[in-house]
């Protein structure tokens, strides 16, 4: 950032910066994004938004949404179990500081990339053919995709740990396994936990796409509401998803605090200690 760089690297940096700027310009002008069109279209958007209000709060619907939300949680939890079972071992193999043999980590990296570059929707197609319509297909689809993402994100968290403690273990004879389990994992666990909770959030949201396979849950209800243009119902469902996401986000925040990922910050400016004048 603020280094006096040798001229060669400096030139490279400028080239990259200019390249990025040009690319952004090309993308923005090419897609016709701009405030003008947004302004012009605000009525259309306002129409849709006003269509969402008031959300449908009919008792019958609410109880169905509650059931659907439970189903969504069920699907997403099962998907997470699958994605952790596959993704976490891959993450360990991929992380550079775990030093798995190069070809194994290459294979693991390839697998993870494959898993996550195939969209949930396409996985869903495959599993519908295998296990039929229903939640199981959704679980496999979300789980596999998410395994790829878990592998990537968690391996990066593993790589981000302080290397001194791990190096010491290694230099005094620690094997790769013990270094990974006792040196790297304990440092990364809080961040890994929060990445996993984020993935759970994603799995909840993905279940919308998975309405495709009739997997049930809010996803299906949303897909149907969308298909049938029931905007007020849609609003209720969006709110339900948002509530689930907020819950997971809260859990994530408190867990991070507990595991010490967030800096337990400095003293409050005004502590509540008794002040006695001397």
């Amino acid at each position, binding site marked *: *950032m*603020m280094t*006096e760089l040798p001229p060669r690297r400096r030139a490279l940096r400028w080239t990259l910066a200019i390249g990025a700027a040009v690319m952004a310009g090309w993308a923005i002008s090419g897609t016709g994004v701009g405030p003008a069109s947004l302004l012009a279209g605000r009525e259309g958007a306002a129409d849709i938004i006003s269509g969402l209000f008031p959300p449908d709060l009919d008792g019958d619907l609410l109880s169905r949404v509650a059931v659907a939300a439970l189903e969504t949680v069920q699907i997403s939890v099962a998907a997470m179990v699958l994605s952790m079972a596959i993704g976490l071992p891959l993450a360990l193999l991929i992380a550079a500081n775990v030093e798995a043999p190069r070809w194994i980590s290459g294979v693991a990296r390839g697998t993870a990339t494959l898993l996550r570059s195939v969209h949930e929707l396409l996985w869903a197609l495959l599993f519908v053919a295998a296990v039929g319509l229903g939640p199981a297909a959704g679980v496999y689809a979300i789980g596999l995709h998410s395994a790829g993402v878990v592998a990537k994100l968690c391996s990066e968290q593993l790589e981000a740990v302080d290397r001194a403690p791990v190096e010491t273990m290694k230099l005094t004879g620690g094997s790769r396994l013990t270094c990974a389990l006792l040196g790297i994992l304990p440092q990364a666990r809080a961040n890994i936990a929060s990445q996993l909770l984020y993935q759970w959030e994603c799995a909840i949201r993905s279940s919308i796409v998975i309405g495709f396979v009739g997997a049930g849950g809010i996803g299906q209800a949303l897909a149907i509401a969308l298909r049938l243009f029931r905007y007020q119902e849609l609003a209720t469902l969006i709110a339900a998803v948002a509530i689930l996401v907020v819950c997971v986000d809260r859990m994530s925040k408190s867990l991070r605090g507990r595991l010490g990922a967030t800096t337990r910050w400095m*003293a409050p*400016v*005004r502590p509540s*200690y008794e002040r*006695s004048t*001397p």
Partner: protein
Amino acid sequence: MRIELADVTVRFGDQTVLEDIHLTVAAGERVALLGPSGAGKTTLLRVIVGAVPPVTGWIRVDGLDPFGSRSEVTALRRSIGCVRQRDDLVPGMTARTNILAAAAYQWRLIDWLTVLRGAVPRRYVRRLTELARRHEIEQLLPASVERLSGGQRQRVALVRALLTEPLLLLADEATSGLDPVRAAEVIEHLLQTEATVVATTHDLAVASCFERVVALRHGRVVFDGAVPEADDLSRIYGRALVAERVT
């Protein structure tokens, strides 16, 4: 800056780390803080700077409460320089930026731009050059701090603390990791400044350069006065052995 602590007690959980500390340091006084490991030296410095709230007590630094209103705290902290026991340079930045960052609250826009370009803002050129020369880190300024050796990092941290010409200097084992020559130079420099200095140390040779020594043990002040004698030392460290070892 005058430091006044009265009746300060600090607890972590159910462990009492500082108990009933009464301490006054006059403006411009230089105090060495001695004591065995775990005595509470670092904690005491952190209380003074407002980083660890005591459970009871009354603290004033230059009449300001380090746990007071935000403006009070800010004003106070801007006249403080810290060398901390734990290595606390920002990784991924050069030594130069690390040092300059200590003064970042005074930066104007032009300074930000200068630093972004990897150069030294004009208003800091003289002082930085002088300090860097004095502590022989000129060569190291453009290097990323990860590349430095332990003693080199220590000197960078020291120069950083001195850059803003603080009125109160809190130095937590500022000479650990430095060879005897450098250590002497650093102490000499600290004592030359106009600042009030509170410095912890384990090096009795270093302590003996200070006009006043305060010693902690188990969170209590067990000695306060001029350089301690051998029997004071065994009171501080709890063993006669000390007297033997320190020739």
